[in-house]
């Protein structure tokens, strides 16, 4: 029972972590909150839905959702961040992204309707039993994809020129610019990567819950924010770890406590950590925004 719940929690947590990584990447580079990230995630899932309904294979669905979300993310940066980057206060991007999120939600309502829709399963899931744990092939796919994407991200950030540009920009924009790094391009790359991960998470969670709605992004987005804070702002490894923790805690709380509290646990854990360790689990930054 416990081992089973642990695996279920890791599966959910892996997808949450993908969303949280997006928040933390953007925060790390721009020092700003992207409040439409949950909507980017949701739109990615809907792009996946459109492809799945057209009969494409699960890999095409996943890749399409990532591509669609990445395009949208870059667009959001263009519309809601870049114009106010050096003007207004740091509250301004909060408002512009809320507005963009509202627009995205209702554009999706216009196209797909406001009601939740079923998301077709990618294939007939076969179950297999390893010791006390029963895994379906779908669960394996979800867990495997999220872990593979996280590994890929680590690789991109550590070993490619783009990754280096992103890390340098996060460290210090001005100095990175002086070193010949194209800061604007690094920011665009950050948004593309963060949004692609959110798009993937959208499809993975839609498979997991077998459905989605235009307001799917709000709840998951909030959880992503809590996880980012838990792991330490701007800390990618922290977000991965935080995502897995929140996923496990959530599944355990449903299994052993009341299911209606499931959404409170992410925030309870977050607030607890902040009281004890205000920089987050792995964060080393000061908590100045």
């Amino acid at each position: 029972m416990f081992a089973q719940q642990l695996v279920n929690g890791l599966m959910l947590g892996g997808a949450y972590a993908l969303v949280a990584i997006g928040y933390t990447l953007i925060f790390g580079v721009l020092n700003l909150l992207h409040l439409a990230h949950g909507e980017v995630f949701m739109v990615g899932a809907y792009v996946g839905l459109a492809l799945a309904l057209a009969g494409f294979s699960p890999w095409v669905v996943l890749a399409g959702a990532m591509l669609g979300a990445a395009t949208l993310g870059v667009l959001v940066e263009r519309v809601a961040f870049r114009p106010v980057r050096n003007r207004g206060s740091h509250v301004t991007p909060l408002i512009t992204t809320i507005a963009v999120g509202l627009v995205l939600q209702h554009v999706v309502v216009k196209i797909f309707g406001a009601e939740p829709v079923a998301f077709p399963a990618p294939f007939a899931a076969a179950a297999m039993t390893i010791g006390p744990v029963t895994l379906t092939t779908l669960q394996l796919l979800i867990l495997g994809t999220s872990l593979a994407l996280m590994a890929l991200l680590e690789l991109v950030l550590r070993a490619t020129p783009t990754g280096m540009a992103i890390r340098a920009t996060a460290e210090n924009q001005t100095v990175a610019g002086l070193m010949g790094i194209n800061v604007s391009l690094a920011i665009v790359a950050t948004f593309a990567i963060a949004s692609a991960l959110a798009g993937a998470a959208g499809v993975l969670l839609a498979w997991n819950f077998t459905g989605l709605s235009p307001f799917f992004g709000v709840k998951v987005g909030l959880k992503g924010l809590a996880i980012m804070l838990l792991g330490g702002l701007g800390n990618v490894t922290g977000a991965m770890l935080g995502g897995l923790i929140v996923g496990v805690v959530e599944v355990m709380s449903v299994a052993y406590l009341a299911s209606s509290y499931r959404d409170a646990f992410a925030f309870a854990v977050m607030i607890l950590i902040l009281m004890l360790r205000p920089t987050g689990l792995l964060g080393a930054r000061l908590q100045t925004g």
Partner: protein
Amino acid sequence: MLSDHTVSILIFAGIDVIMALSFYLPASAGQLSAGQGGFMALGAYTAAYLTVQYGVPFPIALAAGGVIGGLVGLAVGFPALRLRGLYLVLVTFGFGEMVRVLFLNAPAFGGPGGFAGIPPATTVWHVLGLLLVLVYFFTRLSGSRMGRAFAALRDDEAAAEAMGVNSTYVKLAAFTAGGVIAGLGGALYAHYTLFIDPEAFGVGRSLFVMLYAVFGGLASFWGAVVGASILSVLPELLRWVKDWREIFYGVLVLVMMLVRPQGLLDPALLARLSLRGERVAARG
């Protein structure tokens, strides 16, 4: 005299202004709260529970809503002492969510089914009366010792402390007062809608409250008043676009913020209108 429809628009707009002011007060001390919906929920549920279960007269229930909002504001203010900027935004976000989940799981308050049967008590005069009191309060505040301490803290905490501002005390005062205002707003809301459920005070509410105040501009409390008035009446004016309404609304807000990143009443405009804001210089 006024049609029911007009009255309802006025009351809801008035409550939105009250909520935007409840965000503005801590924000004027640099404390951004994305959890004002949580305080509103506490005020609404407290007042409604008192009038329904104990038959308490409305004015007393209203005051109780404000007191509970203030007490919880004080409690939330403590962790806020350690956190700044966007960290604080995130924690207050979490606070609002936790309040919502708490009421969702409280059978005494109706849980997810909501709390019904609240006696009608709020009139347009209550709302306007409270607004007048608040406008008087804010005009008096801006020139006062406390108001100046707020502005100093917002602009530079270290410098404010060096000048002798007790930042702990000032921050707690700002959060408490913001909680009181939001609690009062919630109590008024509950006794007009006559039915409340936790979803009415969720993240959406908190974000819209923030949106109203920032849209209007944070340089003066008039920004919150103007921003909330415009944005809560706007959906009525957008009726002709039918189900494109939310999209229109979002695009309008976005364009507005891109054109005037500091809000409608930015420092330059305030200076021209010579309304006495707390501070008329540009701020970053």
